[in-house]
C-alpha cells in the first residue's frame, strides 16, 4: 500500500527533474527569442531588412560609430573605412569595411555585430551587410565590404549616439553548410 503511493509521487518528482533538465536547454532558444524581441543584448537583424519607404526625419541626427576587432587567433586585418557617421532617421547610408587576409592560405571569416547601448539594436536596420554571410578571402587578398543601413525613425529621442562593433571570427573549418552550428539556434543556418 505504502509502496504504491511512493511510486506515484516519485514518478511526479522524476517528471519535474526531467522537465527542468529540458528547461535548462529550452533557456537557449528562449534567450535568443527574448533578446530578439527586446534587443537587449545588442544583437541586430541577421537577414536583410526591407528598405524604408517613409519620410526621413531631417530634424533629428543620430551619430553612429563603427568599431572593429578580430577574435583571438584571427590574423585578418579588419577596419572600418568610416569611423563615425551622422545620419537622419530613415535615411539610407552606406559604410565600407576593409579586410585583408595576410595568411598564406585562403580563409573564411564571419563577422558578428553587437550594438551598444543594446536598446539601439532594434532600430538599426541593415538592408545589406557582409555580416549576413561568411566571407571567403584568398591568401593575401583584400576587399572592401559594404554595409547599407538606416536608423528606424521609431528610435527613442534619448538615443543620440550608438556604437556598432563587428568582431571577425575565423570559420575556415568548413563551408557555409557545415559551419559550427548551435543545434538550438537557427541564426546562421539561414545563410
Amino acid at each position, binding site marked *: 500500500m505504502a509502496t504504491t503511493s511512493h511510486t506515484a509521487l516519485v514518478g511526479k518528482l522524476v517528471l519535474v527533474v*526531467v522537465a527542468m533538465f529540458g528547461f*535548462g536547454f529550452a*533557456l*537557449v532558444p528562449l534567450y535568443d527569442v527574448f533578446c530578439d524581441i527586446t534587443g*537587449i543584448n545588442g544583437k541586430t537583424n541577421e537577414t536583410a531588412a526591407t528598405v524604408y519607404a517613409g519620410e526621413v526625419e531631417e530634424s533629428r541626427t543620430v551619430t553612429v560609430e563603427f568599431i572593429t576587432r578580430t577574435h583571438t587567433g584571427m590574423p585578418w586585418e579588419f577596419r572600418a573605412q568610416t569611423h563615425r557617421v551622422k545620419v537622419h532617421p530613415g535615411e539610407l547610408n552606406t559604410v565600407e569595411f576593409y579586410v585583408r587576409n595576410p595568411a598564406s592560405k585562403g580563409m573564411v571569416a564571419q563577422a558578428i555585430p553587437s550594438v551598444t547601448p543594446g536598446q539601439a539594436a532594434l532600430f538599426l536596420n541593415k538592408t545589406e551587410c557582409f555580416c549576413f554571410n561568411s566571407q571567403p578571402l584568398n591568401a593575401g587578398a583584400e576587399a572592401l565590404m559594404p554595409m547599407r543601413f538606416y536608423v528606424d525613425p521609431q528610435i527613442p529621442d534619448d538615443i543620440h549616439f550608438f556604437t556598432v562593433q563587428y568582431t571577425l571570427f575565423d570559420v575556415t573549418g568548413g563551408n557555409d553548410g557545415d559551419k*559550427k*552550428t*548551435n543545434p538550438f539556434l537557427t541564426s546562421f543556418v539561414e545563410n
Partner: protein
Amino acid sequence: MSKATDIVSPDHAAADHDDHHDHHIPKGLMRWVLTTNHKDIGTLYLWFAFIMFLTGGAMAMVIRAELFQPGLQIVDPNFFNQMTTVHGLIMVFGAVMPAFTGLANWLVPMMIGAPDMALPRMNNWSFWILPFAFSILLASLFLEGGGPAFGWTFYAPLSTTYSGDSTALFVFSVHIMGISSIMGAINVIVTIFNMRAPGMTWMKMPLFVWTWLITAFLLIAVMPVLAGAVTMVLTDKFFGTSFFDAAGGGDPVMFQHIFWFFGHPEVYIMILPAFGIISQIVPTFARKPLFGYASMVYATASIALLSFIVWAHHMFTTGMPVAAEMFFMFATMLISVPTGVKVFNWVATMWRGSMTFEIPMMFALAFIVLFTIGGLSGLMLAITPVDFQYHDTYFVVAHFHYVLVTGAVFSIMAAVYYWLPKWTGRMFDITLAKWHFWCSLISVNLLFFPMHFVGLAGMPRRIPDYALQFADFNKWISIGGFAFGLSQLIFLWVMIKACRKQGEPVSSQVWEGAEGLEWEIPSPAPYHSFETPPVVK
C-alpha cells in the same frame, strides 16, 4: 511544536527491541556499504562531508599561504586557480550539501515519527556515488595540465575555449554530484509527504523538516539546470556545438544566465536548512516556543520562490539594460524582508526567555549575528551602482564566506553538537567543544572581516598576487585562516571521542528545554525507531 504524548512502546521496550535488531546489523565494512538504514546513511554523509570540509580546507590553506605576502612564492598561478576552483566546488557540493543531507537522513524520519526514509535503497545509492564523484574531481588535479582552473562558476569561455582536457572529468563529477543531490531530495520529499506519523499535520512539522522540504523542491528544480549547463560546456568543448561561442551563433553571456538560474537558488539550498536548524536550537535554550512559527514557514517559502527571480544580480556588470538592473536590484532587496522576519523571530524567541548558553546555542547565536553581517553585505552588493565597484573584489569573497562559513557551516556545527548526544547516547567533551567554538569564532572573523576592507580598497579575487598596500591585511587574513583551519582539528578530536562512546550517558531528552519526537526516543537513538508510528496530538 509537536509533542508525542502517546508513544506506543515505552523506552525500555524500545531498547529491548533495539537489542533484538542489533543481531542483524552486519559488521565491518560491508555494513556501511550495504546499509539502507537512515541513521547509518546519515552518519556516512556527515563523515564524508567532514572529510571533504577538511580537504577543501586544506586547499584554502594553500590559497592563504600563497596570499600571506605579495608576490608569487609557493604555487604557480595555474595551480592557485585550481585551488580556488576545487576549494569552491568541494565546499559547496562536497561539504555543505552532503552535511545537510546527512542531517536530513538522521533527523527527518525521527522528527516526523517515521521508521526510515521512504526509499532506503535509493538512499544507499545517493550516498555511495558521491565518493566516486569527488575521487574523479580530485584525481583531475594530478593529471597532466591539472584540474579545473576556471573558478567554481566555470564561466564560458574559460571552461570551453581556455580549459584543459580535465574539463570532461569536472563535468562528469558534477553530473554525479547532481544525481546524488536529486535522489536525496526526492527521498526527503517522499518521506515527508507519505510517512508522517498520524496527527503530524503540515503546520505541526518541526521547522527543520519544513526548511528541508522546501530545499528539496529547490534541489529538484535547479540541479537539472546545472546538469544541462555542464552538458553544454562539455559539448561546446569536445563536440563542436556553439552554445556559448559567438562565432557559431551562441552567446557567452547566456552561460551566466543559465548558470545563475541554478546558482542563486543553490545559495538558498545551502542556507534554508540552516534556518531550520537555528529555529530548532534557539527555542530549546531560550525555553520558549519558537516565536512566529507560521511566519517562519511562509518566510522560507517566500525566500525559495524569490530565489528564482534574482539570478542576474550576479551579472550587473555584463551590460544589462537599466530596467533589468533595477528589476534584479529590487527583487534582491525584497528577499531581505522574509530573511529579516526570520532574524526578528529568533530574537523574539530569545526575548525574556530563560536563556542558557550550551555549545549548540553558542553556535546558533554566533550564526544569527554573523549571518546577519553577511546578509547586510549582501544588501550592499545588491545595489547596482555600488556593485560595479564591488564586483569581483574581496568584498564579495567576504560576503559569501560570512553567509556560508559563519552561516551554513556554523549551523551544521550547531546541529551536530545539538543532536550528537542523541546519536551517540553520550555527552561530547564540553571543554574541547568550548575551545572549538571560541577558537573558530575569533579566527573566522580575523579571516573574513578584513576581506571587506581589502575588497572595498579594490583587491580583486581569484588572483595569486596583489598590490603592496594590501599586504598587512592579507597577512592577518592568512593567520586567521590558518587558525580557523587548525581549530577544526579540535572539532575532529571531539567527533572521534564521541564516536568512541566516551562521555557521560545522557537522558532521552538530553537538553532541558528540547521538545519534539526525536527527544522522546531513547539516547542513543535505537537502530530502528518508530517502527510503530507515534500518535501526535
